[in-house]
């Protein structure tokens, strides 16, 4: 029996993996298992504790886990399966196992090219003339993330994640801040880390932490839950000096809610999708709700599973996508529609993309279609920015690509 790899062994020693008593709550909770998929966190923990995790590398489901951490919420022994699966994937990847990589591996290729390449990206074309930013140094760094790449890769989804980016900068401007926005950003590396590609993740981490250190920023704000998680939890070993404060945009807005003075932009009933990285991984569940409640004319109705029990968007860090992911997404959209909300508000571009993809389902379009906006767009509209008008169900039925 080959001993566990160093990374897995370290995780076993520092954590509570061996505390697992096989109760099976993790699998019972797992959205994939509940949708009918074969994924069993319990079985993987058991294999790891018996030193047989390499069997998993040959199997099907190591890269299927959504890493949504719902199992960790329920686990009575605090085994920490989500952290374990990341370490298992690192070992598997270093030993030659590769995830399925949906979309032709395009996302992974982009990230790896940013990690090792020597190009000057064109990341700032979205910056319109009305947005005030600093190119070099400043106290606040707005971390854009890769929304421009998403919009270029998925034009048919019409998600326009860049609108959330623009709204975020506009909101910071309205709070008197001209953030540093840099064209030298590279992908934060979140997906490479969760796909097991530690080497390229570290290249990106080193570059990005140096970039922000050179800007002198004391605060980094981002609209992407995955970027924030990565910066706050995974970048820790890489900061050259004192780490800056890392905030999700909603945390920042909640702190400054008193200065915002939003106006009602009509009456709107909304529901909110908790990104798994924001609520469960980071514990940031209340600030987005505080922000929504501060908007006059906006009524927040929670979905059946909200906050720490919220269902993840099943994107799975681009390592895998199948009919079970689609079932999870469809179920989530049904919950959203059941609230009677006009709008589904998100705080992560990934949630927006994956749920929009599910809405293109040929047989279900009408039943699960709902307008989506990033929370920044909603706040921006309440402060005089581009209005958010829900076009209602009739327009949704005429969505491009929706089949009759």
């Amino acid at each position, binding site marked *: 029996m080959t001993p566990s790899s160093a990374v897995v062994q370290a995780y076993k020693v520092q954590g509570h993996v061996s505390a697992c008593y096989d109760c099976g709550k993790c699998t019972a909770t797992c959205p994939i298992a509940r949708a009918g998929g074969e994924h069993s966190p319990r079985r993987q923990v058991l294999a790891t504790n018996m030193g047989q995790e390499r069997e998993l590398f040959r199997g099907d489901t190591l890269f299927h886990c959504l890493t949504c951490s719902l199992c960790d919420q329920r686990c009575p022994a605090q085994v920490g399966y989500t952290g374990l699966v990341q370490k298992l994937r690192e070992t598997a990847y270093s030993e030659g196992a590769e995830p399925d990589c949906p979309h032709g591996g395009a996302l992974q290729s982009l990230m790896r090219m940013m990690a*090792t390449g020597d190009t000057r990206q064109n990341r700032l074309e979205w910056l319109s003339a009305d947005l005030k930013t600093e190119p070099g140094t400043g106290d606040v760094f707005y971390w854009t993330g890769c929304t421009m790449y998403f919009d270029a890769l998925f034009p048919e989804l019409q998600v326009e994640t860049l609108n959330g980016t623009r709204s975020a900068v506009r909101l910071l401007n309205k709070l008197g801040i001209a953030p540093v926005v840099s064209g030298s950003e590279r992908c934060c590396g979140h997906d490479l880390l969760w796909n097991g590609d530690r080497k390229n993740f570290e290249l990106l981490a080193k570059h990005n932490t140096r970039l922000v250190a050179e800007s002198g920023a004391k605060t980094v704000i981002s609209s992407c839950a995955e970027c924030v998680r990565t910066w706050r939890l995974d970048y820790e070993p890489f900061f050259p000096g004192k780490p800056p404060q890392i905030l999700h945009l909603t945390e920042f807005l909640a702190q400054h809610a008193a200065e915002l003075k939003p106006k009602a932009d009509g009456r709107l009933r909304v529901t909110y999708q908790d990104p798994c990285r924001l609520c469960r991984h980071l514990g940031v569940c209340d600030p987005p709700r505080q922000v929504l409640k501060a908007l006059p004319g906006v009524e927040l109705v929670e979905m059946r599973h909200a906050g720490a029990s919220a269902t993840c968007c099943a994107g799975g860090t681009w390592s895998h996508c199948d009919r079970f992911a689609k079932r999870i997404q469809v179920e989530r959209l049904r919950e959203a529609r059941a609230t009677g909300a006009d709008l589904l508000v998100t705080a992560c571009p990934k949630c927006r993309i994956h749920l929009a993809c599910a809405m293109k389902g040929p047989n279900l379009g009408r039943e699960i279609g709902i307008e989506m906006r990033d929370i920044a767009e909603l706040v921006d509209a309440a402060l005089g920015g581009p209005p958010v008008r829900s076009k209602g169900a009739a327009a949704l039925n005429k969505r491009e690509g929706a089949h009759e």
Partner: protein
Amino acid sequence: MSATPATTASDAPALTASPAWNPNIVVFACNWCSYAGADTAGVSRIQHQPHFRTIRVMCSGRIHPGFVLRALQHGADGVLVSGCHFGDCHYMFGNHRAVEQFDRTKNLIRLLGLEEGRIRLEWISAAEGARFAQVINEFTEQIRTLGPTPLVRRHAPAEGREKGGDSATVR
């Protein structure tokens, strides 16, 4: 390119004629038209630049941006996608899909900061051996002008380019 010992100076092969670097080009060719066109070029003994490798696909419409990006990620200096002329696609509208896919690919390349001349979309039919050779020659020359892909570090980052940090990977 191995040097045979020269008996006199005039017998010495022109070793300086070959440059140190030749383009690494990947060609995605559709089975029904372009791959056959490449074959026609070969059968007709038409001389053309050899610095490419062909990957046969059933239809150019299959070429998702991920394929082109992966070729570039692994060090291709240029990628050529070739399919049937409009109206001739074996699967009716596959080449139209190829255009949609290629548009997305071009946008991604531009965002990455790669020169757009490194990727090219062409329509070459099975009979057009000469055209295949011509496109290969033109594209090879174009890539020669653009130089080796900036994605593979062979040297320290050039002055004026974005600071590379510690991520130099010299192949």
